């Protein structure tokens, strides 16, 4: 199998077009199943009552939000090292979903925090680091939108993401340390002491849904970006003529 074959925008466009509907259906079905498990099958938590059920949205979104940044840095490095156009396209296609999921994690965290901790926001280490991650996403998006030249904006975004990914562990560490030093564990993250298997299955199903959703949306977005960038080529002209 020749991987370079799929690095060509033409092949990738077709392949991604074939994959998107499957992934989108998978995401929808998995999300339905996960939500059903989460809201109807999982038992009520003896400490947190019903409110804990937001975990089924919160945790997958947070995981995905963090993971996407690393994947972006990966594609950025590939793009810079091998001068691969498609890698930059993937990086760009990932960023809005990453920002969205990080925001969802923050939002659901606040909604969860209100009944549990009695406050929408605590300067807890995890909350703070997620907020900073969200800012890093916004910075990358702002940089892209400020540079008109595609080549330059791709590379600048890749460099920024690489720089950010070096810094993320340091930021995480500094924030964890900052919090534990000053605030103590009076509130802290009230972790579910032991998770029932059903809850775990629910979280994992929702995580799988988040993966499928992310890949589907990313590929769909990547296809649009390819169309925009290759609009002068013959094959895109043909596709556009068909769609019009």
């Amino acid at each position, binding site marked *: 199998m020749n991987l370079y074959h799929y690095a060509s925008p033409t092949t990738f466009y077709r392949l991604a077009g074939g994959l998107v509907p499957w992934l989108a259906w998978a995401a929808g079905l998995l999300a339905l199943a996960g939500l059903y498990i989460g809201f109807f099958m999982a038992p009520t938590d003896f400490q947190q009552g019903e409110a804990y059920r937001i975990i089924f949205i919160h945790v997958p979104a947070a995981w995905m939000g963090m993971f996407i940044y690393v994947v972006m840095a990966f594609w950025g490095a590939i793009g*810079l090292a091998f001068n691969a156009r498609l890698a930059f396209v993937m990086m760009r296609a990932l960023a809005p979903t990453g920002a969205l999921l990080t925001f969802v994690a923050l939002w659901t965290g606040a909604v969860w925090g209100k009944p549990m901790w009695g406050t929408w926001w605590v300067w807890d280490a995890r909350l703070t680091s997620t907020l*900073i991650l969200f*800012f*890093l996403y*916004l*910075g990358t998006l*702002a*940089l892209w939108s*400020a*540079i008109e*030249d595609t*080549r*330059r904006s791709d*590379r*600048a975004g890749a*460099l*920024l993401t*690489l*720089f*950010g990914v*070096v*810094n993320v562990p*340091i*930021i995480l*560490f*500094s*924030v964890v*340390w*900052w919090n534990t*030093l*000053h605030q103590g564990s009076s509130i802290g993250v009230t972790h579910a002491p032991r998770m029932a298997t059903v809850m775990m299955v629910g979280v994992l199903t929702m995580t799988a849904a988040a993966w499928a959703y992310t890949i589907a949306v990313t590929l769909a977005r990547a296809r649009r970006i390819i169309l925009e960038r290759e609009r002068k080529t013959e094959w895109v002209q043909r596709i556009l003529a068909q769609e019009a």
Partner: protein
Amino acid sequence: MGRFLLSVVRRDLTLAARRRGDWLTALFFFVLVSSLFPLSVGPEPQLLQRIGPGVLWVAATLASLLSLPRLFEDDHRDGSLEQMLLSPSPVVGLVLGKVLAHWLVFGLPLLLVTPLLGLQFNLPAEAIAVLVFSLLLGTPILSLLGAAGAALTLGLRGGGVLITLLVLPLYVPALIFGAGAVGGILSGTGAEAHLSLLGAFFLVSFTVAPWIAAASLKVSLG
């Protein structure tokens, strides 16, 4: 490379000496912003002592952001930056020279006025000493990370605001450790741990940021 670096520093210092307004503005901004806080939160000495280290650190980061967009901008506009990139000397040397000059022009004066502002915030002498030391370690970090941001946003419309969005999240560790060191002294837990971590963060920035900035300069100038 050493001689190239020195010549870059000397050139930038000469330019700064001829246009004093540029860097004095950042310094004045630092003093002004810090002085606004007692006016807005109230003059109680205890409160001021509590927030002083953090306020001064935030003011220092903002002041550095104010001066950073100019780091490469002037040379870019008159074309000399391109010539310097074309020269056989490594771009990293150019970046390091620029950063060093920026620190001498921006960081050093800031360190000199900090004790006065510390007095305004009712900080004891020991805490002021730690504050100055933390800024001595921290302001080079601001210049280094900021250089990468300035290189990325070179020549963009609204680059000044954009650099803030890019660089401020990356400043977070410096801010935490720097202000934390002074807080540690005030609360009696000691400043050593924070200062060591700040030093470590400086070393990491020193090894990573110049390369990112050099690569970004090449990207920005096509």
